[in-house]
């Protein structure tokens, strides 16, 4: 470190907490939060700190959004090693150390995100989709009204349907739904209507389902 300022941030996890994040914590999401907190706190005077932390955050954020690239891990490690040697302050040194520890201890998690968009705990936006449980939805339209990008189709008394192509995974609908009917899904997607249908008309045999290979 070639220190030019004293910046530190309270509340960042320790290296130990990075190594053993706990069962419901994703290493990538954890690192994304660390870097976001750091970039909001840094003073901006040093290049390696300011642009280094911003760059790491951009890469980790991309990975969390399912836009990771092959070579990202090596790039981050390289960047972090330079920051560790020549960084500007305790803050960027800490960020570099935490990132190195995370990538080292959880390489499967990181590679799963980059190669297969896989987040075991469904914490990273690029690794899950949001779905309305047709059995719980009351057709109240609250979720559609809460959506900032307008990607939820439905209407009074209809089971709502989320367009996951347009969805940004902001989670506004999840917390808005009075029925707790909206949840995340990873590789296995739950069944639901493709278009809004009246509440109560999906499932329970009321909707006819076509099954492949069986003629009617």
């Amino acid at each position, binding site marked *: *470190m*070639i220190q*030019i300022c004293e910046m530190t941030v309270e509340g960042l996890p320790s290296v130990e907490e990075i190594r053993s994040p706990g069962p419901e914590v994703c290493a990538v999401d954890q690192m994304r939060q660390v870097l*976001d907190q750091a*970039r*909001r706190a*840094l*003073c*901006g*005077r*040093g*290049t*390696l700190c*300011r*642009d*280094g932390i*911003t*760059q790491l955050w*951009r*890469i980790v954020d*991309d990975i969390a959004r399912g836009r990771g690239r092959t070579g990202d891990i090596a*790039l981050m490690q*390289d*960047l972090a090693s*330079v920051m560790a*040697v*020549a960084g*500007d302050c305790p803050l960027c040194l800490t960020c570099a150390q935490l990132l190195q520890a995370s990538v080292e201890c959880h390489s499967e998690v990181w590679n799963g995100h980059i190669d297969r968009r896989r987040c075991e705990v469904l914490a990273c936006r690029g690794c899950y989709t949001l779905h309305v449980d047709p059995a719980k939805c009351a057709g109240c339209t609250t979720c559609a009204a809460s959506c900032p990008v307008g990607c939820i189709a439905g209407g009074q008394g209809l089971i709502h349907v989320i367009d996951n192509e347009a969805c940004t995974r902001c989670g506004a609908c999840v917390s808005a739904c009075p029925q707790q009917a909206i949840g995340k899904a990873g590789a296995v997607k739950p069944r639901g209507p493709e278009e809004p249908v009246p509440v109560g008309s999906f499932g329970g045999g009321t909707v006819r389902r076509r099954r492949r290979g069986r003629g009617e």
Partner: protein
Amino acid sequence: METIKLTIDGVAVEARAGQSVLSAALEAGIYIPHLCSHPDLTPEGGCKLCVVEVDGAHTQPVTACTTTVREGMQVVTRSEGLNRIRRTSMELMLAGHPEDCTSCRSYLKCELQAMMQYLSVSHARMRDVHRTATRISAVNPLIDREMERCIQCGRCIRACRDLRGVGILEYKKQDGEVYVGVTGDLSLAEADCRFCGACVEVCPTGALQDREGVFDRSLPREQGLIPCSAQCPAHINIPGYLEMIAQGKYAQAVAIIREKVPFPLSLGRVCTHYCEGQCKRGGLNSAVAIRDLKRFAVEHDQELLWKKNSVHLPATGKKVAVVGAGPCGLTAAYYLAKKGHAVTLLERLPVAGGMMTTGIPAYRLPREEVRQEVAYILEAGVTLRTGVNVTNAAALLEEGYDGVLVAVGAAAGKVIALEGYVPQQCTTAVELLRAVSLGQDTPLVGPGKRVLVLGGGNVAFDAARVSARLGAQVTVTCLEERAHMLADEEEIVQAQEEGVTVLPGHTNLRFVQEDGRITGLEVSAITGFRFDGGKLLVDVVPGSQRVLEADTIIFAAGQKTDLTEDFGLPLNRFGYPELQGRGHATPVPGVYAAGDVVTGTKAVIDAIQAGREAAQELDAYLGGDGNIDEHLTDTPPSDPCIHKIPGFAQQERAQPAVLPAQARRDSFAVVDGGYTEEQAQAEAARCLKCPLRTQIHTVKMWTAYQK
């Protein structure tokens, strides 16, 4: 000063105690890449390009800009590890910087671009960082802030804070994004920026730029950065004397002006002030009133410091004749006399001063003031002989003069002989102005006369306003439309206030006659005009002909010389003396010509500068060193720490007290009452202090170093 010995890359280097490793290396010709450090700014160590290894490669690298030299220090500037740090830092800076260099105004002048080449770094590896805070405080006068090009090195912040004591630039944050912003995200003017340009000067990229047209980039940097002085023909140190005025040191101010011109008061009255046209403050709100301040300084100079410090060299025994006692001849005579030559000034009219006493009206330039400045010139040892009409300049050499300067001006008014021209009812502006100045009768201009002035320049308005004062009913007509008239705006406005009718955008067709007398001029409105090979072409508005009634016509269509071949000098086809090369020497050895007689009608300041140049050449011809520069006052260097002044950018130009129109019309009393002391000091303090910027060093790029 204690000398420190160290080695850099195995080369023994001597440095001063307290010097940084970076500066020691650069002075020794050893290049260490650097971006955020600047020779005039406090080092920060932020960019990490100047990393070096000290006393063994296994230690932690340090930044050379923040590391002080130590006796016996061993510095390594190149290694794989250092290169990795430098390249990574550069890549990070480039991630947020546009890739297209060629569209940037700093292309090929950019330190970042040079550094990309030096380190062979591209944009490729890192994620592009698109910034959103770049539009904050972006629109400003004088300074273009294209913050998407900013690499946040902080030089501008340190320059504004540490060099200038202004401190309105700072690192700011918006939604986790760092940007270099203005205090409170205000515009520069609202934040009380002093518009000194230090931030632009130190910016290593194209992020901070001078607005196009503020400075003349064709001039050398030291001149181009001070537009007022660069534009002044005599290159008077204008910011220098404005600062003295602001401090109430009027004697010093006058001494600074007198280092270049012997007519500060006359110029303070009537100078065409090319300087104000280029004043950088004009791009902010309004130019500093340089001319009016010059006058104020002279009027309030109690000490005449310039006189005490003026140098007069011992007699050389050489005799010089200067023909024509206008501003050019008087100036040349003054400097030649101070160089020790015996100067005789020969003037055709009964008074010295040229157009300053027999052209420009007394209400603009009081005769007593010119007389005082001429008296100072005579005090320097110049002999003035008035009423002497020199008919042959070359013959003066045979009368015992070693050198001759012809500075007879362009005193003959041009006449346009339109159809119906009657010489008895026509005169020229110069003739009228000369007659009035010499107290002669003016039968053509007086109470009850309807006077028509043809022309739209300052001379036309002098003739018009003089005619109005003589009781005539005056109309001025010219080709140019109102917005493009050649006269100073204040001349036009004041003339109108005094009852002069102004009819711009008209062409003259013919004089209307009755019984062999002119009764009017037929004119026609035009939409435009141009000159094709010297021939005037006008675009007439069809059906717009009208007759302007007139008893007297005054031509103010320019002046020419009245020299003939008998004057002993070869003339060109326009009647002006031929000159050799770029100087003022005529083909007749020892005879020089300068001023309006060479250039045609120009301003007083142009004539003075021509007089200076001719004096230098003549002095050299007579065996002197040709150097007429004077050092008339010692002023301490301007304090670069200018601090913030609340409301600085909004300060408007001070308006001098002007005599009411009716009082003006009834007399030849001086129109412009000048400034109060309070007004003058405040006006002088509006100066943006452009020269401060030349004190800032330019950064040498890596190509300038051997190693």
